[in-house]
C-alpha cells in the first residue's frame, strides 16, 4: 500500500487543518483506504462544509411536511395516506466532460434517491443551463445532455414532464444539469436510511462494482481549469435497464417487511452509503469486501470503497429475511450479496482477503466533518434602471417577434419531444411540457401533482436576495396558475467558488431570499443539493439556485392549462403592473444591456394575488391561466395564443408608463387569465383588493393591439418553433 506523503494528502483535497483532524480522530496515521474514505466523506459534495451553515437557515417545516432535508429526498403529505417524495440534484461537472453519460447518470442518481424511500417515481424534470449559443461547444453539449436525459428516463419509463433550458455566457465552461424526480409512496411504506440492530445483515444489490468515477465526489468539489479536460477522470456509464429492474425489485421487496434501512449508492458510493446508514442508526459496520460483486479483477479496497458505479443500493435486512429478499432480486436478474453486518462497535471495519484493511470510528468521522463559516460580502444593490435611458422601440410588434424567436423565449419543443413525457399514462393533456407547471395524475385517483423548475439567474446575479425570492415566487406562481396548491420545494444551489467572499455573498443572499419567500408563501424546503466551484479559469457562473416546486390539486378536472380554449373570451390581467424593465429580458435582447435592479417581489401581494387566482380557477371562473415571467405581458399573452391556436385582440388601457414597459416589463406576481364573465371576475378581484384589468378578447388569428399593430399568430409560431431545430441542425 502506498505511503501517505504530503502529496498524497494534498491530492485528496485536505487542508493542513483537516488532515490534523484526521490524525486526531484516528489516533494514528491512516492507510490509503482510510485516507480515501476521509477524503470523500469530507469533500464539499458529501459534507456540505461551505454551505451547511446557511442551509440550516432555510425554513423546512409545515404541517404537511413528513420528512424534510437530511434524507435521500423530501416527503410531503398529499392526502389519502399518500405522500409525494422528491428531490433535485446536479450533475454539472460530469455532464460537461461527457454530456450523454453525465446527464444520463444524473437522472439515474436522482431516481434512486426517490425510490430508495419507497416511492414509485412518477415524473422527472430537468433544468439545463448552457453557455451562449455562439460558443463552439454549446451545440454538442445540448445535444448530448438532452439525449442523455431522454435516453435514461425514456428507458426506465418515467415521464420527463418539464424543465428549463437557458443559454448564457456565464455557463460557457460550466454547464448546469439539474435533474429532479418526483415519486409517490404510501405513507405507511416509507423507508429511511438509518441502520439499526447489531447483528443485522447488510446486503448489496444492483449492478457490480467497477472502477467507475473514482473521485467523482472530489471532482465535483474543485474548480475547473483548461487542463482538467485533459485529466478527464473515468466517467460513469449509466445502465437504465438495470435501474428499471432495480426500481421494480426494490418496490416489490418494500411490499414485504424485510427492510430495516435502505440507501442508494450515490456520490462516494459504498463509503457514503454505509457511513450514513450507520451514523444515522448509531451502529457500527463490518463489511467483507470479498463479498462485494465486482466487475473487474483485482480491485483494491480503496477502489471498491470509492467507486461510483451506478445502479447499486445498500440495505439492512431483518435477520432471517435474506432468502426471501434474494428471491426477489434473482427474479429481476440483479446481483444480491450479504456483504456484512451491523455491530455495536461504533466503528467501520473493512475486511479484504482475510485482512482488516480499514478501521474507522463512524461518528467522529461523520459528525466531525468540517463546517466552515466562509467569509462573505453582500452583493451591492444595483441602482434602479433610469427609464429615460430606455427608448421606445420603433416597432413593438417586430420587437415581440424578435423576442419570441430568441434563444431565451423560443419553444423548447426540440428538447421535450426527445423525452417520453406520457409514459405511465397519467400526464394530463394540458399538463404536458410547454405550460406553466406539468400536471401528472396520482395514479388511480382524481388528484394530480403539479411540478415546475424555476430560477432567473440574471436577477440572482444583480441582487441575490431579490433573485432568491423571485425564484421561489415564480415556482409558486407556476403551480398556482394550474389551479394546484403549491406545497413544498427542493432547491439545487449552483454557485461558483465559495472560497471567494463575493461568491459566498451570492450564496448567502440567495438563501436569505429563498427563506423569506418560503416563509411568506408557506412553501418550505424539503430537500436540496449544492453544487459549488462552478468556475473555469476564475470565471464563476451566474448564481443559480434552481427551485423545484411541487403542488397538489384535489380534482385534476378543475386544473387549467395556458392555452386559450375558446374565441370571444375576456382576457384579464391580474396583479399590479408598473413597467419594471430593470434586468429584464427585453433590455438584454433588444437593448443589449443587463443593468438595473431586478423587479422586486412583494411577497404579501404575491400570496394574495395567487390565492385569488387559484380560487377562481377552482371555482371554474377561469378557463386558462398563465403567469407572467420572462418577457412580461406581451410575451405571456402570445404564449397563450400559441398554445391555444387562436389570436387575441387587445384594447390598450390608459397607460401610466411607456408602451414598451407595459408590454415587456417584468413586474412580479401577475397572471393572465381568460374568462367568460369578466365583470364578475373584476368585481371579485376588487372586493379582495387584487388588481385586475380587462385587456382584450380571444379570437381571430392575429395578435392585434389597437393602435399599435397586428401580427399573425402563425408568423410568431414559425419564429418561436424554428429557432431551436434550426440551431441544432
Amino acid at each position, binding site marked *: 500500500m502506498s505511503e501517505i506523503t504530503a502529496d498524497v494528502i494534498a491530492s485528496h483535497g485536505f487542508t493542513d487543518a483537516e488532515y490534523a483532524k484526521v490524525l486526531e480522530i484516528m489516533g494514528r496515521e491512516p492507510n490509503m483506504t482510510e485516507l480515501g474514505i476521509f477524503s470523500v466523506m469530507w469533500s464539499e459534495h458529501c459534507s456540505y462544509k461551505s454551505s451547511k451553515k446557511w442551509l440550516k437557515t432555510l425554513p423546512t417545516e409545515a404541517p404537511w411536511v413528513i420528512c424534510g432535508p437530511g434524507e435521500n429526498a423530501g416527503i410531503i403529505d398529499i392526502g389519502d395516506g399518500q405522500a409525494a417524495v422528491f428531490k433535485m440534484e446536479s450533475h454539472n461537472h460530469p455532464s460537461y466532460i461527457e454530456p450523454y453519460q453525465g446527464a444520463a447518470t444524473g437522472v439515474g442518481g436522482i431516481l434512486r434517491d426517490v425510490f430508495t424511500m419507497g416511492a414509485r417515481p412518477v415524473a422527472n424534470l430537468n433544468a439545463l443551463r448552457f453557455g451562449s449559443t455562439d460558443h463552439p461547444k454549446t451545440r454538442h453539449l445540448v445535444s448530448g445532455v438532452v439525449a442523455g436525459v431522454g435516453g435514461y428516463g425514456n428507458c426506465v419509463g418515467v415521464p420527463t414532464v418539464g424543465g428549463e433550458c437557458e443559454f448564457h455566457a456565464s455557463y460557457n465552461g460550466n454547464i448546469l444539469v439539474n435533474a429532479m424526480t418526483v415519486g409517490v409512496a404510501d405513507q405507511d411504506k416509507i423507508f429511511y436510511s438509518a441502520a439499526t440492530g447489531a447483528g443485522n445483515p447488510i446486503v448489496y444489490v444492483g449492478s457490480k462494482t467497477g472502477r467507475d468515477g473514482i473521485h467523482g465526489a472530489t471532482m465535483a468539489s474543485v474548480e475547473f481549469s483548461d487542463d482538467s479536460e485533459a485529466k478527464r477522470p473515468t466517467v460513469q456509464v449509466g445502465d437504465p435497464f438495470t435501474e428499471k429492474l432495480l426500481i421494480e425489485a426494490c418496490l416489490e421487496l418494500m411490499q414485504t417487511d424485510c427492510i430495516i434501512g435502505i440507501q442508494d449508492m450515490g456520490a462516494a458510493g459504498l463509503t457514503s452509503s454505509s457511513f450514513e446508514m450507520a451514523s444515522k442508526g448509531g451502529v457500527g459496520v463490518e463489511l467483507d469486501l470479498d463479498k462485494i460483486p465486482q466487475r473487474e479483477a483485482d480491485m483494491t479496497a480503496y477502489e471498491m470503497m470509492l467507486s461510483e458505479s451506478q445502479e447499486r443500493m445498500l440495505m439492512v435486512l431483518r435477520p432471517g429475511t435474506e432468502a426471501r429478499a434474494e428471491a426477489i432480486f434473482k427474479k429481476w436478474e440483479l446481483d444480491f450479496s450479504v456483504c456484512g453486518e451491523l455491530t455495536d462497535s461504533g466503528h467501520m471495519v473493512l475486511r479484504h482477503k482475510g485482512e482488516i484493511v480499514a478501521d474507522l470510528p463512524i461518528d467522529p468521522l461523520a459528525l466531525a466533518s468540517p463546517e466552515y463559516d466562509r467569509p462573505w460580502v453582500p452583493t451591492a444593490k444595483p441602482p434602479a434602471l433610469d427609464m429615460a435611458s430606455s427608448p421606445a422601440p420603433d416597432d413593438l410588434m417586430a420587437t415581440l417577434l424578435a423576442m419570441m424567436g430568441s434563444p431565451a423565449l423560443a419553444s423548447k419543443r426540440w428538447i421535450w419531444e426527445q*423525452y417520453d413525457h406520457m409514459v405511465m*399514462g*397519467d400526464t394530463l*393533456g*394540458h399538463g404536458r411540457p410547454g405550460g406553466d407547471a406539468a400536471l401528472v395524475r396520482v395514479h388511480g385517483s382524481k388528484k394530480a401533482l403539479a411540478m415546475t423548475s424555476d430560477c432567473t439567474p440574471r436577477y440572482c446575479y444583480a441582487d441575490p436576495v431579490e433573485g432568491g425570492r423571485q425564484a421561489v415566487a415564480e415556482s409558486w406562481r407556476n403551480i398556482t396558475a394550474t389551479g394546484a396548491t403549491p406545497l413544498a420545494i427542493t432547491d439545487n444551489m449552483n454557485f461558483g467558488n465559495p472560497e471567494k467572499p463575493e461568491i459566498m455573498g451570492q450564496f448567502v443572499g440567495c438563501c436569505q431570499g429563498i427563506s423569506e419567500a418560503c416563509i411568506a408563501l408557506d412553501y418550505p424546503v424539503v430537500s436540496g443539493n449544492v453544487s459549488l466551484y462552478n468556475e473555469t479559469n476564475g470565471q464563476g457562473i451566474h448564481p443559480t439556485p434552481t427551485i423545484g416546486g411541487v403542488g397538489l390539486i384535489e380534482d385534476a378536472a378543475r386544473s387549467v392549462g395556458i392555452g386559450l380554449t375558446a374565441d370571444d373570451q375576456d382576457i384579464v390581467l391580474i396583479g399590479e403592473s408598473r413597467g419594471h424593465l430593470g434586468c429584464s429580458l427585453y433590455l438584454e435582447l433588444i437593448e443589449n444591456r443587463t443593468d438595473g435592479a431586478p423587479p422586486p417581489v412583494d411577497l404579501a401581494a404575491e400570496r394574495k394575488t395567487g390565492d385569488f387566482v387559484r380560487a377562481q380557477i377552482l371555482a371554474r371562473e377561469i378557463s386558462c391561466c398563465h403567469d407572467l415571467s420572462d418577457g412580461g405581458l406581451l410575451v405571456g399573452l402570445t404564449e397563450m395564443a400559441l398554445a391555444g391556436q387562436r389570436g387575441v385582440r387587445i384594447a390598450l388601457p390608459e397607460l401610466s408608463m411607456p408602451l414598451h414597459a407595459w408590454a415587456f416589463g417584468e413586474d412580479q406576481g401577475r397572471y393572465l387569465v381568460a374568462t367568460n364573465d369578466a365583470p364578475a371576475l373584476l368585481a371579485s378581484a376588487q372586493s379582495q383588493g387584487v388588481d385586475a384589468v380587462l385587456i382584450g378578447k380571444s379570437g381571430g388569428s392575429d395578435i392585434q393591439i389597437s393602435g399599435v399593430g397586428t401580427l399573425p399568430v402563425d408568423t410568431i409560431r414559425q419564429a418561436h418553433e424554428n429557432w431551436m431545430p434550426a440551431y441544432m441542425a
Partner: protein
Amino acid sequence: MKAAVIVFPGSNCDRDLQVSLRIATGNEPLMVWHGDSSFDDVDLIAVPGGFSYGDYLRAGAMAAKSPVMREIIARANKGVPVLGICNGFQILTESGLLPGALMRNAALKYICKDIHLRVETNDTAFTRGYATGDVLRIPIAHHDGNYFADPDTLDELEQENRVAFRYTNAQGEQSADANPNGSQHHIAGILNKNRNVLGMMPHPERLADAALGGEDGKRMFEGLVRAIA
C-alpha cells in the same frame, strides 16, 4: 373477454395497456411474466411498449427469444389475436410473427409527440372500431420505428391489404413531413397474413382518456372487444 399483457424485463407501458384493457374489457387483464412458458387461455395477447432488455443490441431482439414468445407464436398460429404496440411491434418483427424490421428513426432521435394516422383497413378485429379512412390523433414515443421491408414484402403487404395504419397529416394526406420516422410506405402498423397479429408503433393506450388529451385510441380497444367477444 380476457386479455393477457406480457411483461418483459424493461417493459414500461405494461401498466398503461393494463388500464386501457381493463376499461375496455371490464376484466382485469392477466399480467404474464416473460419467464413463464405457459399461461391461461386468453382471448387477446398484448405485448406492450417499453425497452425490453434496455433495447440493447436491437430493439426487441432479446425479448423475442424469451420463453414466453414461443408460447405466443404457437397461439398466434392457432389464431389467437396478438397486439404489439411500440416495443411490442419490434418484438413481433424480431420474433418473425410479422415481416420486416424497425430501424433507427431517420432523424436518429427519440420522438415523443402526437401524430396522425389513417386507418387503412378495418377488416381485422383490431380496427373494427374505426372506419377505413378515419384519421386518428395518437402519440408515438420511440427511437426505432422506421419500418423497413424488402420490396417483395412491401408489395405483398400492400396487395393483401395488410397495412393497418399509415402516418398522415391531420387531413389524412401522406407526406414526407407527416412521416415522423422515415418508415417505408409511411407504414405505422401492419398485420400478419391471417390478420390476427397487429404490430403498430403509435400508442393507442396513451390517448384513451379525455383527461390525457384525447380518446382516439379508446375506439381501438372498444372495437377489439366487440369483434372478439
